[in-house]
């Protein structure tokens, strides 16, 4: 076993590469680079079920069979159904709301509006030590702040009855002037000084730079659009409230719900065993959940509330519109001398969302002079929120497109330009990287893609009536860390249970935690059952920011090691143990058997030991909190972001890295762009399960295709309405848009970053994809599009 601190640790790159891409790749790119001796290491199989093995998803079968029970599939007696009514103007007041026809409609149980007078408390925002991603609470006043704001909820005996009755609500508005676009002259940008960065004299250095590129890069409103729309079931039992909610974070949801309802948090339970996609939109519960709780309380019945697909576009926010002015100055041989950056994102009138457009601008390249500022601009919109790699995504889009422009201006290869400006340490924090396998990513990605065969001239490659473009971009995502807990239970019948409140949002947490426990306890992974997503389980932080796998793998590993120790102690010390005469240091746990290390046979199965010592179960609770952490700290870790450590917390700057390579075909007549193939190399540190990590990476890359070519919330400039609020008109990539995708892992275990050496996976996959595609489109057509998505009208006739 190679120590992670072994100076030869880069060899692990190759092991990872093969694990990730499977046998089909062994003859290509990354594997070819291996020396013969290392090639042997490549073929060494990881033990079935162990950490690092490509186990299929533990929850796959129940999901395919349709027996996985999602939040609103919770069957409860006497269920009532709530349907929301949303505003149809962007700003003003509700003068009158007529619900007479609604109340008279068949099956209607109740209608609640701002006139009903139910108090819902303002929740604490993430930045204030809370968990909410918006302070807005519905039905508390007659103000309309955006088009599509919840203004009433109708509850009926059936969903259909509630839907029909909701359509009968009539509203008289007193409209006021709305601010709909951040470029409106009446808009007030608010500088975010906390994230500004300045070193050297960027303006002067840019002015005198021999080579300059400068552009404005914009991204539209984008939406998370998970397959499972936002929906919940709320049920009270006395003064105790249970909410079945598709949540990326049951602890946070519990905190927000208890604040809304003014309820002791111990009386709130949130259950979220499965999430049908969140991508950041299910981190905190959104306002409709509060209405489900209120209605359930008032009616004394469980209430199910499901947003319609159109309502999800304004019942919660997606990624805000972003705008970046970016200027790069360089020497004639390609050395950056200055980066000047100014960005903004839109936010809500009474709420705040920051999409830091400079998070990568200040991180990726070495430059002696840099200036970067970011502002937020309030407009009449639902508060925007998190969507896969918030900040890093648009930041990388602008920076990596500008770098491609610089490479073109210099006549330099885009990979060579990036290597020329390699940052030896974190340029902003001025501390070393923990690990940065980005050079390896460039090399492995370029090799597998065949980058060296690229003719750098735009419009130089074609086939028939298609222009061929090859583009690349780098990507990165920080390593976030927040402590969490896990419990392992060994049963006398041989079953092993792993418990944690953390949520599997479809990423594979169920699977990898079983791997972590099975590896240490030496039991078949199939015998480990994992329970997740419930506030009754041990406390865990948010499944977001690509952190949860690292945290829970640490907690479960620690718990498993402690369980093993306890078992061996029990075996050596309990008077009823068959191994009582052995010394604990001579015992090993292997293949589910405890045995003296010098004897290959004659062990005792875990279950048999427990039976012998008359223990029904053995329970071990462990965590990744610092020793001596208080209950208050443990709760804070579970219910807020206050214990979240930044990437620089360990004294090194911890980030995951990637290199994306893309081939596009652009029809020379039509301007249609099709992605023909994608190759990406990722440094996500140690990969716990290559199959599931690949699934996350390609998911991000596919989402990136949508972002680059299709996705755009169309906001009517007259009334702020999202006019394409459905999945036919808001187009995401479908199977036909997705080409062959090759992924390569170049990561090495990074124990300075996380307990088991993993870094970010899920968010990383999308970062840089839009830039790589945009750069490929430029290479194909000679047209530089700096405004996403790259649709037909921007290229037709190109």
């Amino acid at each position, binding site marked *: 076993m190679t120590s992670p601190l072994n100076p030869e640790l880069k060899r692990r790159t190759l092991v990872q590469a093969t694990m990730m891409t499977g046998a089909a790749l062994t003859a290509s790119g990354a594997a070819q680079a291996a020396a013969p001796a290392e090639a042997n290491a490549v073929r060494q199989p990881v033990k079935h079920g162990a950490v690092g093995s490509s186990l299929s998803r533990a929850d796959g079968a129940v999901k395919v069979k349709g027996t996985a029970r999602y939040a609103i599939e919770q069957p409860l007696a006497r269920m009532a159904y709530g349907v929301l009514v949303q505003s149809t103007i962007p700003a003003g007041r509700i003068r009158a709301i007529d619900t007479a026809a609604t109340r008279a409609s068949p099956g209607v149980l109740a209608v609640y509006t701002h006139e009903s007078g139910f108090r819902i408390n303002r929740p604490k925002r993430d930045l204030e030590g809370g968990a909410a991603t918006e302070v807005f609470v519905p039905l508390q006043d007659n103000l309309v702040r955006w088009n599509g704001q919840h203004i009433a909820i109708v509850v009926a005996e059936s969903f259909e009855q509630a839907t029909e009755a909701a359509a009968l609500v009539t509203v008289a508005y007193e409209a006021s002037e709305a601010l709909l676009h951040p470029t409106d002259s009446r808009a007030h940008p608010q500088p975010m000084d906390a994230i500004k960065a300045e070193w050297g004299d960027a303006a002067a250095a840019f002015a005198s730079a021999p080579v300059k590129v400068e552009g404005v890069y914009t991204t539209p409103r984008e939406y998370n659009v998970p397959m499972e729309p936002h929906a919940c079931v709320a049920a009270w039992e006395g003064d105790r409230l249970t909410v079945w909610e598709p949540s990326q974070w049951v602890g946070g949801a519990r905190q927000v719900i208890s604040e809304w309802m003014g309820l002791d948090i111990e009386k709130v339970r949130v259950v979220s065993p499965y999430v049908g996609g969140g991508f950041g939109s299910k981190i905190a519960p959104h306002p409709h959940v509060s209405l489900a709780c209120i209605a359930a309380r008032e009616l004394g019945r469980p209430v199910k509330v499901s947003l319609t697909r159109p309502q999800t576009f304004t019942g919660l926010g997606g990624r805000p519109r972003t705008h970046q002015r970016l200027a790069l100055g360089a020497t004639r041989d390609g050395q950056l001398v200055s980066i000047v950056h100014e960005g903004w994102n839109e936010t809500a009138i009474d709420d705040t969302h920051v999409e830091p457009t400079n998070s990568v601008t200040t991180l990726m390249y070495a430059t002696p002079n840099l200036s970067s500022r970011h502002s937020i601009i309030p407009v009449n919109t639902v508060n925007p929120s998190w969507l896969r790699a918030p900040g890093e995504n648009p930041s990388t889009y602008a920076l990596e497109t500008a770098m491609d422009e610089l490479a073109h201006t210099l006549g330099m290869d885009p990979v060579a330009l990036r290597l020329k400006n390699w940052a030896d340490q974190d340029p902003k924090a001025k501390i070393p990287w923990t690990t940065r396998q980005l050079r390896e990513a460039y090399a492995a990605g370029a090799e597998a893609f065949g980058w060296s065969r690229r003719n750098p001239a735009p419009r130089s490659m074609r086939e028939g009536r298609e222009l061929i473009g090859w583009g690349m971009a780098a990507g990165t995502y920080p390593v976030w860390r927040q402590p969490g807990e896990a419990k392992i239970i060994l049963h006398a019948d041989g079953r092993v249970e792993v418990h944690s409140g953390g949520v599997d949002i479809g990423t594979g947490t169920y699977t990898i935690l079983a791997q972590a426990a099975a590896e240490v306890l030496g039991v078949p992974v199939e015998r480990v059952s994992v329970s997740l997503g419930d506030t009754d389980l041990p406390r865990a932080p948010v499944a977001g920011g690509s952190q949860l796998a690292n945290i829970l793998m640490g907690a479960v590993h620690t718990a498993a090691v402690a369980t093993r120790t306890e078992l061996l102690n029990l075996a050596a010390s309990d008077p009823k143990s068959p191994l009582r005469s052995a010394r604990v240091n001579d015992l090993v746990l292997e293949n589910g058997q405890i045995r003296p290390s010098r004897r290959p046979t004659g062990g005792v199965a875990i279950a048999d030991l427990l039976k012998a010592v008359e223990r029904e179960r053995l329970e071990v609770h462990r965590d990744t909190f610092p020793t001596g952490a208080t209950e208050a700290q443990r709760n804070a870790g579970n219910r807020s972001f206050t214990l979240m450590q930044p990437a620089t917390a360990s004294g090194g700057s911890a980030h995951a890295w990637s290199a994306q390579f893309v081939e596009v075909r652009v029809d020379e007549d039509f301007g249609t762009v099709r992605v023909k193939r994608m190759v990406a190399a990722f440094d996500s540190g140690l990969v716990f399960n290559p199959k599931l990590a690949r699934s996350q990476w390609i998911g991000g890359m596919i989402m990136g295709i949508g972002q680059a070519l299709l996705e755009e919330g*169309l906001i009517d400039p007259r009334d702020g309405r999202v006019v394409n609020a459905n999945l036919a008109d808001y187009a995401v990539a*479908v199977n036909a848009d997705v080409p062959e995708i090759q992924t390569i892992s170049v990561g090495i275990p990074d124990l300075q970053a996380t307990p088991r050496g993993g870094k970010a996976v899920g968010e990383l996959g999308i970062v840089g994809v839009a830039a790589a595609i945009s750069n490929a489109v430029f290479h194909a057509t000679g047209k530089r599009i700096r405004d996403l998505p790259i649709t037909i009208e921007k290229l037709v006739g190109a």
Partner: protein
Amino acid sequence: MRALEYLRAPDTATALREAAQPGTRFLAGGTTLVDLMKCGVERPARVIDITHLPGLDEVTVSDTAIRIGALAKMSQVAADARVRTVAPVISEALWRAASAQLRNMASIGGNLLQRTRCTYFRDTAAYPNCNKRNPGSGCAAMDGLNRNHAVLGASDACIATYPGDLAVALVAFDATVRIMGRFERVVPVDQFFRLPGDRPDLEHDLAPGEMILGIEIPLSDALRRSHYLKVRDRASYEFAAASAAVGIALEADGRTIREARVALGGVATKPWRARAVEQALAGKPLNEAVIRDAAAQAMAGAQAREHNAYKIALAPKVVARALMSAGGIA
């Protein structure tokens, strides 16, 4: 959703009799009707399920024509080997429409009646004024986000695009619709669809209580050498930015165009026959320059609104490429 009465008709006579009552809609695949009921555009008091009517799901190909029953499924017709041989454009138009799931449900009759995807038309809560829903009430699309709206056949009242693909192929090849009401009648598809004028709510020639029994497509040389090309941002499952249904019949020399058929989709308020392009091609040699010249006439009379001018640039290129493909010179 409004509570509604549901009847399953055992035969055509019953269906027609029941359909005479006001507020009644026929239900076949339901892919348009149920969708529009969900967004409140359609609010029938009664639906008559016609999926059990006998004899209306057949596809027959004779020496002179293809006949398709109104209840044949889109996927069924698309996969029919005879149709693919004698009328590739029909099969291709169907394959490129909607998604696999929708094609398995949607009927041919219902497909013709598919209503526009104008998002203002579909958003009944925010835009009560819509000339297609309430004639004379106004149009939000005219000065709104009209990227997907029509540049041909529009009126001051409505610029909503006809969304379908199959009907575009049908108008190009002089197909007819067989309709049953108090009596049976046959209408050319081109006449079946109406221009919006000042009554955009009247989209077609079907009177209340009438039912489509089927369509008939006369066979021709041009139909045998036909092609449907659909261009859109997304590779699948999206309405056309512009599409073209074309066919070419060549003279015995194999190089001269005897007859061309051209119709456009995604750019007009109804399936749009481009006779000017057809006439410009007749008797001309089959080559790219000739085709591009002729295709330029496809947009005669086109009028752009703020966001849809790109369709005027795009559509002639789509027509030209489709013709080149059909002619084997793409």
